[in-house]
């Protein structure tokens, strides 16, 4: 049994690494594609096996250090130093003193801590519980799909760049290796190992953002690197403090509810530092700029960073250690910081016309909501946090891939240019619209979690106000984007666009996943999330129950105090959205008229894109969306918001020191 688990574990982390190496060494396209597909299938299998094993276990799959190969700890130590050395080397090569300084700020404590303090590694090296499995599901299902998408995308991408020598081997190496590091990160129970994998993801994201090697991508990659290194410094500081205070590095033992009076001294500071590490990785305000800068990378990279890997590592860490600070002042401050990011990012997103930046801000907002829920820390809030990790990962991965596909189709990522994209790429457009609806409207998951978050935030009026204002802002930027994309004039027949098979497959699987997680919300909650919440040992009166195909909040007795029959509504909506077009299609075709343009239409033009201008010459009509740059402009707001967010984080540390 244990041997099998060990083999799975090795497969989940080392197989991607191995495949990555093959991708790099054998520079043959066919081989590479084959490796990517095999890697995907094996990761799917591993995920399935983990879920199966976990269901059969009593709450978690544990692997003790004894059963691991000997000296693994030693190896990781040396790799850690090697990794930091490599990052420092990159800093030197790019002549960035800040990076070198931040690397040194980690390297010195790491060497001191790992080699001179005689650390006892925790007995349970890997603990795979429900939260880990949820993350593994996300990483190993969405991640490989994005890799498959990249096969078709990168071909086209390099075609545009006219490269003399393809850089795809390195690209696929990093992407696949990334998945292995993420898998290891969510499975390990050893904080210092988690730190190692954490730094691996930092390095991977740096390499991926820098992939195109032009000036702007290098600038942005450096920014991503130094911000995440800052988080790394906080992480290593937290590790040292925790080891001093608690004498253990076992995440399990750290993430327990504090006994009365125990939440004093240095330990809360360490937790605060871990949260800050999470904030940097999850691109919370004021660290958001690295994720926005990451948009210069090819789309699969953005999709990967935003949906299943990288940013999810940050929220994973915060949710993981949440039981240790629930109900404390630190928890409250984390909730406020998260809610503030949610509101701020949603507000700034209104002013953006670049589709990828809108998506980026929306990601930041949703991560803020997850962190906010972890900070609120009651039963419903944590349920919302974990659910949102899943829903957001799937939907956002899909959306990035769609935007990437459309960008290659129309040559622009500006929302205004997407008017009438329905005509050129109907299938991609419909998939994208469903993806956007799944981020905004009932009965899809993201809204359900927003609903849960609001119902959970009742104990904190400030957090609630921020969430409420933020969610009003999300309505604005999503609905104007959906409206723009769906703008279309009459066309008798739609020709399905020609997109590469790999992209088709990726979009198809992800849209299916969006529906599956939505329809299966109740079973998924019961099977994977509820047990995890039970394992957190929360003492709330209000509980969340998944039944009748929906989620129901119950008070002390079994009376529902809130709830929503997701499945029922979903069925009705789906039935309507299939029945209505069918019925309309069967019914008489409407008589088509051009839009009203004060009688100045041009006769042959049914679209209304032109009107008869002065001097009987056709002139174009142009309507742009409102971006409210006066109120929500990025340049205007960013500094202020960063200051406030920085103040909140300072306050957070200050409060716990007291």
């Amino acid at each position, binding site marked *: 049994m244990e041997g099998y688990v060990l083999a799975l574990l090795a497969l989940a982390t080392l197989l991607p690494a191995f495949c990555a190496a093959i991708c790099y060494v054998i520079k043959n396209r066919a081989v590479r594609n084959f490796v990517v597909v095999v890697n995907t299938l094996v990761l799917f299998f591993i995920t399935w096996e983990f879920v199966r094993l976990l269901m059969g276990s009593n709450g978690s799959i544990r692997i003790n250090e004894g059963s691991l190969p000997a000296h693994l700890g030693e190896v990781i130590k040396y790799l850690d130093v090697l990794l930091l050395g490599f990052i420092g080397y990159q800093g030197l090569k790019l002549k960035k003193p800040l990076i070198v300084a931040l690397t040194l700020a980690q390297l010195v404590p790491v060497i001191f801590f790992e080699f001179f303090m005689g650390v006892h590694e925790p007995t349970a090296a890997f603990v795979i519980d429900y939260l880990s499995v949820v993350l593994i599901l996300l990483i190993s299902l969405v991640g490989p799909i994005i890799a498959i998408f990249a096969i078709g995308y990168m071909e086209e991408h390099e075609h545009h760049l006219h490269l003399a020598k393809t850089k795809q081997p390195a690209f696929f190496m990093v992407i696949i290796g990334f998945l292995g590091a993420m898998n290891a990160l969510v499975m390990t129970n050893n904080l210092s190992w988690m730190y190692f994998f954490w730094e691996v993801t930092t390095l991977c994201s740096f390499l991926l953002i820098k992939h195109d090697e032009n000036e702007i991508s290098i600038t942005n990659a450096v920014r991503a690197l130094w911000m995440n290194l800052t988080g790394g410094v906080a992480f290593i500081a937290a590790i040292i403090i925790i080891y001093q205070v608690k004498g253990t590095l076992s995440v399990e033992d750290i993430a327990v509810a504090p006994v009365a009076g125990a939440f004093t001294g240095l330990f809360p500071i360490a937790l605060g530092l871990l949260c800050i590490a999470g904030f940097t990785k999850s691109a919370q305000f004021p660290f958001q700029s690295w994720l926005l800068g990451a948009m210069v990378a090819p789309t699969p990279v953005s999709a990967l960073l935003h949906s299943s890997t990288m940013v999810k590592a940050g929220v994973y860490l915060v949710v993981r250690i949440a039981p240790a600070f629930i109900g404390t002042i630190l928890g409250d401050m984390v909730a406020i910081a998260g809610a503030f990011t949610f509101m701020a990012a949603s507000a700034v997103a209104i002013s953006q016309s670049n589709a990828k930046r809108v998506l980026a801000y929306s990601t930041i907002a949703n991560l803020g909501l997850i962190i906010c829920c972890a900070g609120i820390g009651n039963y419903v809030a944590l349920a919302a946090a974990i659910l949102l990790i899943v829903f957001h990962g799937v939907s956002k991965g899909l959306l990035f891939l769609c935007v990437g596909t459309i960008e290659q189709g129309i040559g622009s990522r500006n929302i205004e240019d997407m008017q009438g994209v329905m005509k050129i790429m109907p299938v991609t457009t419909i998939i994208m619209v469903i993806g956007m609806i799944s981020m905004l409207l009932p009965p899809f998951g993201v809204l359900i979690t927003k609903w849960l978050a609001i119902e959970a935030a009742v104990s904190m009026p400030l957090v609630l106000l921020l969430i409420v204002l933020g969610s009003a802002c999300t309505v604005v930027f999503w609905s104007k984007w959906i409206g723009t994309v769906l703008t279309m004039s009459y066309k008798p027949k739609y020709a399905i666009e020609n997109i590469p098979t790999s992209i088709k497959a990726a979009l198809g699987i992800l849209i299916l996943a969006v529906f599956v997680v939505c329809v299966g919300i109740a079973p998924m909650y019961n099977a994977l999330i509820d047990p995890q919440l039970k394992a957190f040992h929360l003492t709330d009166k209000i509980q969340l129950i998944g039944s009748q195909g929906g989620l129901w909040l119950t008070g002390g007795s079994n009376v529902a105090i809130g709830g929503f029959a997701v499945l029922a509504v979903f069925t009705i909506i789906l039935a309507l959205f299939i029945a209505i077009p069918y019925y309309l299609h069967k019914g008489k075709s409407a008589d088509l008229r051009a839009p009203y343009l004060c009688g100045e*239409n041009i*006769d042959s033009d049914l679209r209304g894109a032109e009107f008869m201008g002065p001097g009987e010459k056709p002139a174009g009509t142009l309507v742009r969306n409102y971006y409210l740059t006066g109120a929500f402009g990025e340049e205007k707001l960013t500094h202020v918001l960063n200051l406030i967010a920085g103040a909140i984080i300072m306050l957070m540390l200050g409060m716990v020191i007291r």
Partner: protein
Amino acid sequence: MGLMNTSRMKSPWIIHVNCTACNGCDIEVVAALTPMFDVERFGIVNVGNPKHADVMVVTGCVNPKTARVLKNIYDQMPEPKLVLAIGACGGTGGIFAECYNVLGGPDKVIPVDAYVPGCPPRPEAIIDGAVAALGLFEAKAKAMKEKAKKAAEKAKAEA
């Protein structure tokens, strides 16, 4: 008379098109909307949008430039629809009829159902004309149905 027909008679929404009028008739048309005459008594509302309108109230004579616009607005109105031409110009082109740039009344471009003569006609006369024209809706609706039927048959035959 039927529910649909009663409704049509009781809810004629108008669009007012000024086709190079001297504004005399327009003032009188707008006067009909005021509390003094209150055409909303008859359910008449000035919607200003051909896609919502049932009755087109057109003032003035037609010249080559306005002809295109008038035709376009008329085409955008859904059936059944009526056209009410107001004033002397609306009938024949009035005193401008012989001008080099005037084609004549609106009926040179679109089918007009009722004329309200006068220069300008009084609001009472305009209301009277509108209410009188409403009687034509029934026939118009019948014609619309027949046309739709024929179109459907034609489509069927083609398929």
